[in-house]
């Protein structure tokens, strides 16, 4: 395959970026999107040019590191996959592909296609945990019986990999789907109920502090989420918030 690539290039956080055009040849249909970018970077290095910076880690669709906006869609044209699991067979020979970083004020660009997602870490640190004694006396989690339905729903929410595709695709750059998944995964388990009130209030406070937008319920995040996190989690987050704030002075 021969492809025309329109890639966002930006030197650093403060510089102004622009779209640069490249051509890559001899790309196998079976290679992954990131492998195609590796080939482009090899070409650039051979020519003595600066390679394109992009995030990646496990390349198995579970770490949440890859984060590209491809042809107007978060993680590209395939559904329920991360960029690393996207394959070139989804594109046509001779096609022009736009590759951009996530765009949100709360996720500033560090370089080219790499964005700073530490805002998500700070939201998680604000309450996305349970406080347990880990000094060697930790109880087995299975000692507390949990209804299967609750355990399944909690696990579904816990599959969020924090890739921020929800923020990238939302017209308001809202992080509600991410926060709702993190709140829901604990809210549905007895171990998580103990700190449920503080958790939801602190995580929402931090989300707002980071500068993410409001949720206007367009549903775009649910569609683009590579892990299929449901909008039901946002309703759950809203209920948790209402219940926590109404019982807090």
């Amino acid at each position, binding site marked *: 395959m021969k492809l025309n690539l329109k890639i966002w290039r930006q030197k650093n956080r403060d510089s102004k970026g622009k779209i640069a055009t490249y051509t890559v040849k001899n790309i196998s249909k079976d290679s992954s999107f990131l492998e195609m970018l590796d080939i482009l970077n090899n070409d650039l290095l051979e020519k003595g040019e600066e390679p394109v910076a992009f995030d990646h880690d496990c390349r198995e669709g579970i770490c949440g590191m890859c984060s590209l906006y491809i042809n107007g869609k978060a993680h590209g044209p395939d559904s329920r996959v991360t960029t690393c699991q996207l394959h070139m067979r989804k594109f046509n020979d001779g096609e022009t592909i736009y590759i951009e970083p996530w765009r949100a004020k709360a996720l500033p660009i560090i370089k080219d296609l790499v964005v700073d997602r530490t805002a998500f870490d700070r939201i998680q640190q604000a309450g996305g945990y349970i406080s347990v004694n880990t000094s060697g006396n930790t109880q087995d989690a299975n000692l507390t019986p949990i209804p299967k339905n609750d355990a399944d729903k909690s696990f579904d929410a816990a599959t969020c990999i924090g890739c921020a595709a929800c923020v990238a695709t939302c017209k*308001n*750059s*809202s992080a*509600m789907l991410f926060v709702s998944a993190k709140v829901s995964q604990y809210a549905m388990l007895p171990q998580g109920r103990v700190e449920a009130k503080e958790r939801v209030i602190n995580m*929402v406070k931090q989300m707002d502090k980071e500068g993410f937008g*409001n949720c*206007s319920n367009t549903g775009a995040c649910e*569609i683009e989420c590579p892990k299929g996190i449901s909008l039901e989690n946002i309703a759950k987050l809203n209920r948790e918030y209402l219940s926590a704030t109404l019982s807090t002075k």
Partner: protein
Amino acid sequence: MKKYYFYYTIGRKVLMALSGFFLMVFLLQHLAINLLSVISPNLFNEVSHFMGTNKLIQFILQPILISGLIFHLIMGAILDYKNRNSRNTNYSYNKNDNSTWVSRNMIITGTMVFLFICLHFYDFWIPEINTKFVNGDWSGLHHGEFKYFSELQHKFQDTWRVLLYSISFIFLSLHLLHGFQSSFQSVGIRNSSTTPLLKKLSIYYAILVPAGFVFIAIYHYIDQLII
């Protein structure tokens, strides 16, 4: 507790939804009374007179309604301002095929509805307030007869006004198509069993209520053409 609702994202959305629910209930009541003008002009006059002169409605419910409307407008503008500020650079290429136009453009449909409300106030509400509160005339009479039905008919003689009202109600319909179901989501009412029902209800409400108002305007326009 106030700060959780006026300052933080989710609280603001909850307040937006509650004011939306309030306005949607008001719309139903407004439509029911207006439909009386088609069924029985006399009954329409009597109900309009009651609504226009009852002290509880005029001095308590009316200010609550106006406040709810202004709150919905201001909060909508604040939320939209924050949302626009949350992204500093737009994508060079964005497909936007993962959400509906109405869900992405509530501010546009909302602004059009607001402009319509200004026209509607100019047509009916401001003259009414002037008569009652400035001139002190609470009789509701004009040349010895109730004025409400004749005023309504007079306004809907004008082709442009009927056209403008009809177009405005299309915008209201678009606003409600997303707003109705979105309000339930904002207050946390959504799960696999309620969502399909709410989506259906949303479509019925968003089409039937504005269509009812358009029908009334067109009915009176045609009624007067025939005469």
